[in-house]
């Protein structure tokens, strides 16, 4: 005789509201930071430079205002819903235009939904951002499990395959029967897997990191100058930039203790992703000349979000899950992607993927473009250009 509500598929509105005491504690910890001696070199070859981290810490305690970020997030419709036992947080912005194409877009590490916020306007409201009504998207921006306001899995198994399935369920639950998916970094891994799983309703995918190269058992061809440059970049990354990746994929918990306990440690760990973005971020703090959307405030929005949600360890665990899934799949070729694939190569990315490599991984490549600016955090840094890429990439699927 009772009314039953199916709480497990319920979609609940979500608002960010961080208690002041958490912000006070954060400030106190930043002010009490104990720094190491200065690095012995004049560049980033030993890691995040002390001058950069000092400027960041200073800006964080004197000029930065988390409440602005909170207001930005709360200005957007946010929700949580439980999928496969984990609460998934997502932003859901519907376009005012009819026939907008539903798009689920996934952030990466060391990012979050913060890195995608600047694209909300251009993608959902194209007519106000140099586009036409036919360019409109309905936008779904989930936080990966273990990231930001999504729940932290308490069991193993939340690998990209499981997240990809959850995303399909999320789009289904929102009532979308035809949609597309996009991602960079970890988001590209999830998006790639969605392409391979090809759930009903998924029309096509777009990525801005060629994830098939980094996990490839044999290196891609190096016949052309472009391919050789990309091979060199991959080799450089493996040689000198792979430490964080290996630590997170083998010992996420070990590094997690420090990331939960020291804000400056967290900031340094998150800043030190790739050479291009590190120098851009470093310059933003050094001389106030940010590259596009990579402003000191936006950088600290992202770091502060990791801090306040206490997700340094759980976010790193995503790498461990990838490592585990990769080991389990060793020797077995994954199913191919037959859906239409779009790809944009940004010049500052860890390596600039040549069209030939992308075609090799995705035979049904319906869109490829190499743009002239932007890096690993393309949507964050160049939101307008990034949005135009998505418009062009998916035009044929409408």
């Amino acid at each position, binding site marked *: 005789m009772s009314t039953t509500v199916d709480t497990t598929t319920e979609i609940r509105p979500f608002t960010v509201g961080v208690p002041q005491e958490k912000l006070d504690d954060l400030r106190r910890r930043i002010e009490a930071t104990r720094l190491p*001696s200065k690095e012995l070199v004049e560049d980033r070859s030993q890691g995040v430079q002390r001058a950069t981290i000092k400027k960041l810490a200073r800006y964080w305690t004197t000029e930065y205002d988390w409440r602005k970020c909170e207001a930005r997030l709360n200005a957007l419709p946010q929700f949580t819903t439980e999928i496969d036992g984990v609460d998934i947080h997502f932003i859901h912005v519907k376009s005012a235009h009819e026939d907008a194409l539903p798009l689920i877009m996934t952030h990466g590490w060391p990012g979050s939904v913060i890195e995608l916020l600047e694209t909300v306007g251009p993608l959902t409201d194209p007519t106000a951002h140099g586009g036409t009504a036919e360019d409109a998207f309905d936008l779904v921006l989930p936080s990966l499990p273990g990231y930001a306001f999504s729940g932290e899995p308490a069991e193993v198994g939340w690998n990209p395959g499981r997240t990809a399935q959850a995303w399909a369920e999320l789009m289904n639950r929102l009532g979308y029967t035809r949609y597309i998916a996009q991602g960079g970094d970890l988001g590209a891994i999830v998006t790639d897997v969605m392409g391979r799983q090809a759930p009903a309703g998924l029309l096509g995918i777009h990525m801005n990191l060629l994830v098939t190269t980094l996990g490839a058992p044999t290196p891609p061809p190096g016949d052309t100058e472009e391919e050789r440059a990309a091979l060199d970049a991959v080799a450089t990354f493996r040689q000198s930039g792979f430490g964080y990746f290996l630590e997170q994929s083998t010992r996420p918990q070990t590094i997690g203790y420090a990331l939960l306990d020291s804000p400056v440690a967290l900031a340094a760990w998150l800043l030190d992703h790739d050479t291009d973005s590190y120098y851009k971020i470093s310059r933003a703090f050094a001389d106030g000349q940010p590259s596009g959307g990579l402003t000191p405030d936006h950088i600290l929005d992202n770091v502060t979000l990791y801090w306040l949600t206490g997700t340094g360890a759980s976010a790193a665990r995503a790498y461990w899950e990838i490592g585990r899934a990769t080991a389990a799949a060793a020797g077995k070729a994954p199913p191919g992607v037959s859906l239409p694939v779009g790809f944009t190569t940004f010049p500052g990315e860890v390596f600039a993927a040549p069209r030939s490599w992308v075609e090799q991984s995705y035979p049904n490549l319906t869109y490829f473009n190499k743009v002239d600016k932007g890096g690993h955090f393309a949507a964050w840094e160049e939101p307008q250009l990034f949005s135009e890429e998505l418009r062009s990439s998916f035009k044929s699927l409408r």
Partner: protein
Amino acid sequence: MTVQTPTETAIRPFTVEFAQEDVDDLRRRIAETRWPEKETVADATQGVQLATIKALAKYWANEYDFRSVETRLNALPQFMTEIDGLDIHFIHVKSPHEDALPLIITHGWPGSVLELLKIVDRLANPTAYGGNASDAFDLVIPSLPGFGFSGKPTTAGWGPPRIAAAWTALMKRIGYTHFAAQGGDWGGMVTDVMGTQAPPELLGIHLNWSFAVPPDIDKAIQTGSPLPADLSADEQHACDQLAFFYTTEVGYALEMKNRPQTIYAMEDSPVGLAAWLIDHDARSYELIASVFDGETEGLTRDDVLDNITLYWLTNTAVSSARIYWENTFAFFTPKNVAIPVAVSAFPDEVVQMPRSWAEQAYPKLIYYNKLDQGGHFAAWEQPELFSEEIRAAFKSLRNGRSS
């Protein structure tokens, strides 16, 4: 007309004294640790387990004696001297026995001189431990540059070769005209490099981390290529250990090689530092975790926390990590050491080096022993066994040398 004071070569006595405010700050930080959620596995495959580090932090904040490092170190004669522009801290214990063999012993990462303290009296005073006067050593135990109380280099270049040359200079400055050298981990690296530099005063070396894996095998393991079909059981075991190391154990080392400065974490969070330091290799982690679980085999809680506290109070997490960045040698493969070499192969070390490989790598292998207990911190865990190894290793070098 001025009196020349050779301050650069002066050897000054040294005493450890930690400021009370630094100790108070450390204790406060431990108490205020912000913890992550528990790992999602029931073992150590995601790293240091929450229950272990919480037990460590609880003991550290509530029961540990923060003056313990001072007490232990100040019980021994310590000195400081500037070599090649950098202050080097060292312990120097002379044996009461005449003709004691001078021996310089070098610690590694994540260790310090503390991991070597239990062998000091055994080696300097053998007759008190069932040995003979002819087994005696004069001991010199330096802190590596950037570690403990040694200076922190402010310019690049302090890699193993420069450290090795500094060690020879140190022994000569103390007045030794002949000596032996010993080391494991980075101490093994420095000692092996001393072997390649082969200063005439250096009689021989002993390693508990030796550099003897054939390069083709090391490469095959790293690239996943097939291994030779005729490996002995010991060689196969070493290959399995290496494969395990390269797939799941080398993350911390690669991060410190790539980006030592980025681990700001370890200077700002005591618990972050503790987790980083106890997660060296699977076997030593197992041992340390069991110690905080109430076991007393090998190490004590105080042993572990003395070492972590030393790193914290000297602010040396990043400066010590830089040795990984400076180093250009491989972790396991041979250099070119033509002087006498002794190798002890402990079973729980990252690689238990097979005799066959040690013989190939070191043409003058004067001693090899495969042990049945002990691991990465052999001198710390098994001081008696380790001391016997050192005595046996260098016995043949004592006879017939000119002094």
